[in-house]
Structures are given as C-alpha cells and as structure tokens.
C-alpha cells in the first residue's frame, strides 16, 4: 500500500516536471540553433540590418522587427479603446437580457481559428482598403484592423472582470458626490481597475505579436522597410512561416535567429505581465 502511494507520488511529480522540461528543451533548441547564426551574421547586422536577401547571404531582420512593432501598436490603438468601452458597457450599462446574448458571442470570437479571421479579412477588409487607398490593400493598416479585432475578446474579458471587481462603494460614493454616471466610471472605477486592464493589454500584445497565419494572409509580406501606413510588411512570425519550408543551411539558422528575437520579445512581455499582476496582488 505504502509503496503504491509513494510510486504514484513520484509519477505525479514526474508529470509536473514535464512542463519545466518542455520550456527548457524548447529554449535550448531555439537558442542553440539560433544564437550561433545571429553571432555569425553579427548581432548588430542581424538586428539592425535592413536587407533580407537569403540568396546573397544578407540577413537583416530590422524591417520585420519594425513591422511587428507597427502592427502590434496598430492593433492596440484600434483594439484597446473599443474593447475597454465595450467592457464598460457590459459591466455598467448592459441589461441582463442583452448580456446573456452578447457575452457568449464574445467568447465565441475568442475561439474562432486565426485562419478564419485571416480569410475573412482577406475577402472583406482587403478589398475595402484597396478601393479607399488605391494600393494593394495588404499592409500595416489591414493587419492592424485584423489584429485589433482578434485581441478584442482578451481585452474585453479582462477589463470587464477587473471593472466588476472594483467595490461598488467607489462608484456609489462618486455618484453621491454629484458626479454623472460616466464621470464616476471614468474617474473612480476605471482608475481602480487599472492594473487588471493593463494586464489584459499586455496579454493581447503577446497575442498580436505572436499571431502568424492570419497575418501572413493580409500583411503583404514584403521584407522591406515600410514607408507608409498602407505599405506591405512582413512580421517576424510571417518571416518564419513563409521560408521555413524550403530553407536550408545558413538561411534556416537565420530563421531560427528570427524566432530567438521573437522569443526575447515574448519573454519581455511575460515579465511585464507578471510585474503588473504582482503589483495588483499587493
């Protein structure tokens, strides 16, 4: 009996360690393969080089870094205000009957596969932008709209739950002092929910920067420095997915180097996230 108990305890422990092992192995594979490639190209040349021409051994991923940052920023600019105000509506204004319909819809939005988003954007948003700007329609603006929609559920659900967690005394106190409903929300409830809202924003930055398949379809994928809001760009993620299939040798290692840079971005975002969450717990 005792033996069985102990045996199972170690089996449980072993399983718990698998996730540690997974992170270690993934990091090892990506860094061991990618870092030497970055070293070979030269770290400055790799990160700040503006030419990506694998055929002539030029591996500069600066355009991709800039593109990733641009589309993520665009997604935040579009997604955060809409998401936050929707969350305020859901938490403070929405009648129960409407809520029962809208909330599941938003949950559904969260689980729509990214290819479906990409497809939708390709056949609906791209032609509209094409007509409005007389360009190819694929580029920073379209990608930002796409990612802005994709991060909505994350922003809405985190913001809504943190707004609901604010004690109602704050809101009632402000009302009692004669502030209008909107003023009470904006000046007392939202500031009190700030760190929860921030953690939602950081989560969606992670999602936007890591999104791949939908972005590949609508970003245009030119590996050059963007010069306007409608110019086609290639993000870090799409660089990997587009060329990994046929890349060999140095080219493949440079792509893994791209993943290293992406990984570092994600780790930074994770650190920000846990800092915000820890601050909230205090």
């Amino acid at each position, binding site marked *: 009996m005792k033996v069985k108990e102990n045996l199972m305890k170690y089996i449980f422990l072993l399983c718990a360690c*698998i996730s540690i092992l997974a992170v270690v192995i993934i990091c090892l594979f*990506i860094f061991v393969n990618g870092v030497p490639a970055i070293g070979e190209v030269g770290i400055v040349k790799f990160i700040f080089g503006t030419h990506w021409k694998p055929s002539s051994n030029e591996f500069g991923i600066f355009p991709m870094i800039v593109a990733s940052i641009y589309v993520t920023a665009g997604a935040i600019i579009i997604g955060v205000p809409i998401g936050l105000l929707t969350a305020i509506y859901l938490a403070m204004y929405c009648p129960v009957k409407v809520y029962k319909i809208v909330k599941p819809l938003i949950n559904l939005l969260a*689980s729509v596969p990214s290819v479906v988003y990409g497809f939708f954007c390709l056949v*609906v948003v791209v032609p509209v932008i094409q007509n409005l700007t007389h360009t190819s329609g694929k580029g920073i603006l379209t990608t930002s709209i796409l990612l802005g929609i994709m991060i909505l559920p994350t922003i809405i659900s985190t913001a809504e739950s943190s707004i609901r967690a604010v004690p109602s005394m704050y809101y009632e106190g402000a009302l009692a002092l004669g502030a209008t409903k909107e003023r009470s929300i904006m000046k007392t409830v939202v500031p009190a929910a700030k760190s929860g809202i921030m953690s939602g924003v950081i989560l969606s930055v992670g999602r936007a920067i890591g999104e791949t398949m939908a972005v590949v379809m609508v970003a245009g994928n030119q590996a050059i420095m963007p010069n306007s809001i409608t110019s086609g760009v290639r993000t870090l993620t799409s660089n990997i997915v587009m060329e990994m299939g046929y890349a060999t040798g140095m080219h493949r290692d440079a792509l893994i180097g791209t993943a290293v840079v992406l990984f570092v971005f994600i780790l930074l975002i994770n650190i920000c996230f846990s800092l915000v969450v820890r601050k909230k717990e205090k």
Partner: protein
Amino acid sequence: MSKLKTYLKHPFSFILLVLIGICAFITVASILFIIFFIVFKGVPNLSADLFSFTYNSKNVSMLPSIFNTIFITFGTLLIAVPIGIFSAVYLVEYTKKGSKLTKVIRVTTETLAGIPSIVFGLFGFLAFVISLGWGYSLIAGILTLVLMVLPTIIRTTEEALLAVPDTYREGSFGLGAGKLRTIFKIILPSATPGILSGVILAIGRIVGESAALIFTAGTVANTATGLLSSARTLSVHLYCLLTEGLYTEQAYATAVILLLLVVVINAVSNFAAKKIAKV
C-alpha cells in the same frame, strides 16, 4: 427629462455615453458580420463532392482533413490530459502553498502558455521532424500540440481541484482512505466538470491551430494511414486552399464547417461551465 438636463450640463459625459454605445455596437456588429458573412458565403458552396472519402484536385474534399483533425485531437488529448491532470494533482494535493517547486512550475507553465504557436511549430520541426528524423508526420504534430495545450489543461484542472472543499478530503481521510484513494475516488470525480471544461478549451485550440502544425504534421491532403504519415487538419486545409488561390468557393465551405465545429465546441464548454456553477 432630468437625465437629459444633466447631460446638457455635462456634454463630456454625454459624448462618453455615445462613445460607449458606439464601441459596444462595433464589437457586436463585427462578431455578427464575421459569422453571417462566412455562413452566407459558405453554405451555398457546400456540396457532396467536398465530402468524398479521398482528396483529389478535382473534388478538393475536406473529409480526409476532418478525419485527420479528429486523429490529431484524440492523439493530443490522450497524452496531454493525463500529464496535465497529474501535474495539477501534484501541485494542489502534494505541495504546500508557496513552495519553490510550485513557483517554478507556475512560471514555466505561464511561459509555455505565452509562447506563440509558430515557435512551437519551429521547435517541433527542429526536434521531431529533423533531429528525430520522423519527417512531416502525425506524431510530430501531436507531440507539438501536447506541449501547446498542456498549460491550459494544468491551469483549469488546478482551479477545479482547488474548488473541491477541504471537507471532502477530511471526510475521506476520516473514513480511513489513503491519499491516493481520496484523490481518485473523491477529489477527481468531484472536479470532473472543471477538468472537462479545460479539455474542451484544449480541443478548441487544437482544432483552430495551423501555425504549429504546418511544419510538423505537414500538408498532405489525404487521410493519414499511420502515425508517421503526414496529414493536414481542417485549419491547415483552409490555409492551403487560400494560398493555392484556386479554390475560393471551397475555402468558403471549409470555413463554414470549421466555424460550425468551433461553435459546437463552444456550446459544449458553456454547458460544462454551467454544470460547474451548479456543483
């Protein structure tokens, strides 16, 4: 009337109210638009040809991809669910709150959850397809997805286990049951709805995944014949149809089926969540 007067006195409050209304409308309208657009464009394009047993470039059948999606989903769950549940059991039942190991495991699962799927795909490609020499194969895709859904299952199971009242454990110990018996006969059964909702979340992620699969399970459009044969899931199938650019109509039809799958999975998970609320 008094409301109107207040708003006349405070124009900014009124503007804010209007903005809140507009934003809520935009959110709901875009969701409905996406769903109805896909459904209206897709349903007329559904045909019997699309569900033939074998794929060729004439019928562009999605049935093999549906089978592959089912294989990959089951394969992934078969490995990930026991590991995930056991990890959560260890974290909740065997460690003290705030122990070092728990912290390390929590940090690593959070990291794992934040890694973009393309990085998982790249890892799977380097580790399983190239280093282990399996080539594009079902098993490479399954193992990659196991790593990807593990954090989801661990976290939801953990929450479900924490929600089991301590009186259950004490009661079981009081009747003379050992720890193992308590876990398997008392704790896990009462945590089942919570665990189930985690599993369903994981299924949703597997069905929707494409970036992690394209370089691990590959893109062969026919039903897989074994663990080492390459196969595309429905999401990858949709992506391939779009990049080939010749099959827009079939792509619409595929998107509808994919969306339908997601809606069903979502509905089941809502149902499970309601059951938890009752327990």
